[in-house]
């Protein structure tokens, strides 16, 4: 086992799959010689050349639309959107085309492709370099959404995503890129899509999280553990298709559920989790399904004071845990 940062794990995941399967190509803005603005694709261009690592023009709809076509004709493109915030010009190509090709052809055509995008805040990125965009896409049937929290999962899930026969949106919290390290097996391994994991077992209350929030939730759980509140932390990993079994088993056990997400609260992905829990674990609940999330203002302001105000933190999650636990 080697210790890797989150971004190294992603880079290796791509490189390994490109070595294994010549149909895997990478395209996006600055992914070539520069190796991406976060260096996620660093070294790929040197190893695989112009044909398989393609610097595109500054045109997101093209990046996705071209990938759809390339996938129809036998490639497995990994399209990088430089920041998740810039995925919106490609919204039509993702939602109307990529996510719908298999369904509208009744299985006649498929678009195996991965869309990688760095998302999330707390990095001094302001309104347009901080957003969480998962809610827009997890609502869309036909595309899968994955958000890893650890280097191990990042690599293993990315490999599964690349091998998957359907479009997968792979969101990487940019604050994890260099701040998190972890063990990554040397050999080949994958982490299957669609499986959540219990990161911390507990009996009193379930915290559901994904991405950076898994780490904050674990930290919050440590803090309140000292006060005798024993939390279970579920890392969803794949947001869609959702692992209902793991989610519901945890809440049925603890009887209380807090969903933590960084995105704006209203209509965020956590609303669906809360709604499922409220409907399917009703008889087990001994407290309201609660959510702690970003405020309902358009994204994250730049000024540090405002950014801190906006961002969730272990402290804010711990407060929400205490409140729910006391219910």
């Amino acid at each position: 086992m080697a210790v890797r940062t989150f971004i190294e794990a992603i880079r290796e995941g791509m490189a390994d799959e490109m070595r294994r399967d010549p149909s895997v190509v990478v395209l996006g803005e600055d992914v070539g010689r520069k190796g991406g603005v976060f260096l996620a694709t660093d070294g790929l261009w040197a190893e695989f050349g112009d044909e398989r690592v393609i610097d595109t023009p500054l045109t997101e709809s093209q990046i996705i639309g071209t990938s759809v076509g390339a996938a129809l004709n036998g490639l497995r493109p990994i399209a990088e959107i430089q920041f998740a915030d810039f995925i919106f010009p490609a919204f039509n190509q993702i939602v109307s085309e990529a996510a719908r090709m298999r369904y509208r052809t009744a299985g006649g055509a498929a678009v195996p492709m991965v869309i990688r995008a760095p998302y999330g805040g707390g990095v001094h990125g302001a309104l347009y370099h901080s957003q969480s965009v998962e809610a827009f896409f997890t609502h869309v049937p036909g595309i899968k959404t994955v958000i890893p929290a650890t280097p191990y999962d990042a690599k293993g899930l990315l490999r599964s995503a690349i091998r998957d026969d359907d479009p997968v949106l792979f969101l990487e919290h940019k604050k994890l890129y260099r701040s998190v390290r972890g063990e990554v097996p040397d050999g080949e391994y994958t982490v299957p899509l669609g499986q959540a994991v219990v990161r911390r077992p507990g009996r009193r209350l379930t915290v559901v999280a994904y991405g950076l929030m898994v780490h904050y939730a674990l930290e919050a759980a440590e803090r309140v553990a000292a006060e005798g509140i024993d939390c279970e932390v579920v890392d969803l990993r794949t947001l869609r298709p959702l692992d209902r079994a793991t989610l519901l088993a945890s809440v049925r056990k603890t009887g209380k559920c807090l969903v933590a997400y960084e995105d704006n609260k209203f209509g965020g992905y956590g609303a669906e989790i809360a709604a499922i829990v409220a409907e399917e674990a009703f008889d087990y609940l001994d407290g309201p399904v609660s959510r702690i999330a970003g405020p309902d203002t358009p994204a994250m302001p730049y000024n540090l004071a405002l950014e801190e105000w906006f961002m969730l933190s272990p402290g804010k999650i711990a407060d929400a845990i205490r409140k729910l636990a006391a219910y």
Partner: protein
Amino acid sequence: MTVTGRDSGWASGGGGSRGSLAAPHGLADADLLAMYRIMALARALDERMWVLNRSGRAPFVISGQGHEGAQVGIAWPLRRDHDWVAPFYRSIATCLVVGMTPRDLMLAQFARASDPGSGGRQMPGHYGHPAHHVVSVSSPVATQILHATGIALAARIRGLDQVAMAIMGEGSSNQGDVHEALNFAAIHRLPFVFVVENNGYAISVPAERELSVRDVAQRAAGYGIPGVVVDGTDVLACYAASREAVARARRGDGPSLIEAKVTRLTGHSSDDQQTKYRSASDLAEGRTRDPLPIFRAQLRDAGVLDEITELELDGEIAVAVDDATAFAEAEPDPDPATGTDHVFADPLAGEAPPPWHPSRAREAG
């Protein structure tokens, strides 16, 4: 930008002597007849769709009438089941050229389970055929141009020697995706041909309110690619322009743009009343530009088509249309129980079915 067509004097050769029409294009008379046959077949199928609509058997029709000459001429140089085409909702004749059958098209019209494009899921006119490399048509216009560039990119990377063609109307060519696609295809000199069937209207909006230049082909220069205007009533001019563009693409010399000036003989669709926004004289002028009688007269003049052949063809087409209609109408509807199929490759990855179909319970697991 080049302008070709009958008026430009070179495309369809000189006199009326047997064979003089086909030969300059490297075609045989049999090819011309085959081209004519598909035009006439496309028209007959299209007219039948309207009859079905007006008699309440088909809720929606969208038509290629007036576009068939351009469609047949332009699709003809494609290698069947090898090259790719990303067509649009008027592409009936295009689809026939590349191998779809009248039954295929009528199955789409009736939205039957055996519709090869979508299993009855898509609106009529949204054709598709994986085996014939016809990319599934979607409703949001212009998206297909990017799919075609991606197909061309994959062909290049995989060394497949394929050409990809994307087709749409002039109104649709103003969408941002077109700009992004032409720029990308030109940078990478992809084996790609962009075809615009300009019928002068985007539903009710006349060209001068939807398009800032007279010819879409004028835009080609802005991408450093050839752009050519062809008269869509001149089938052989269309063929010649496409043959050159396809050859150029296959040679590795990059994309080109072909704009065919066509006429829309029907309303935008069966939901549209074009008399509300088109003058009688405009409509009358449009009818003079019907490619079918024009090509027929050309073939007759050249001695390629005689009365007997024409009658035989008409008969054969009538049979084919009747057969396709009867066959498709009799085919079964999709089973509602299949409604959740093909969301993902792995049905187990799908979402829970709606509560009113408990029989098909599939948990996300």
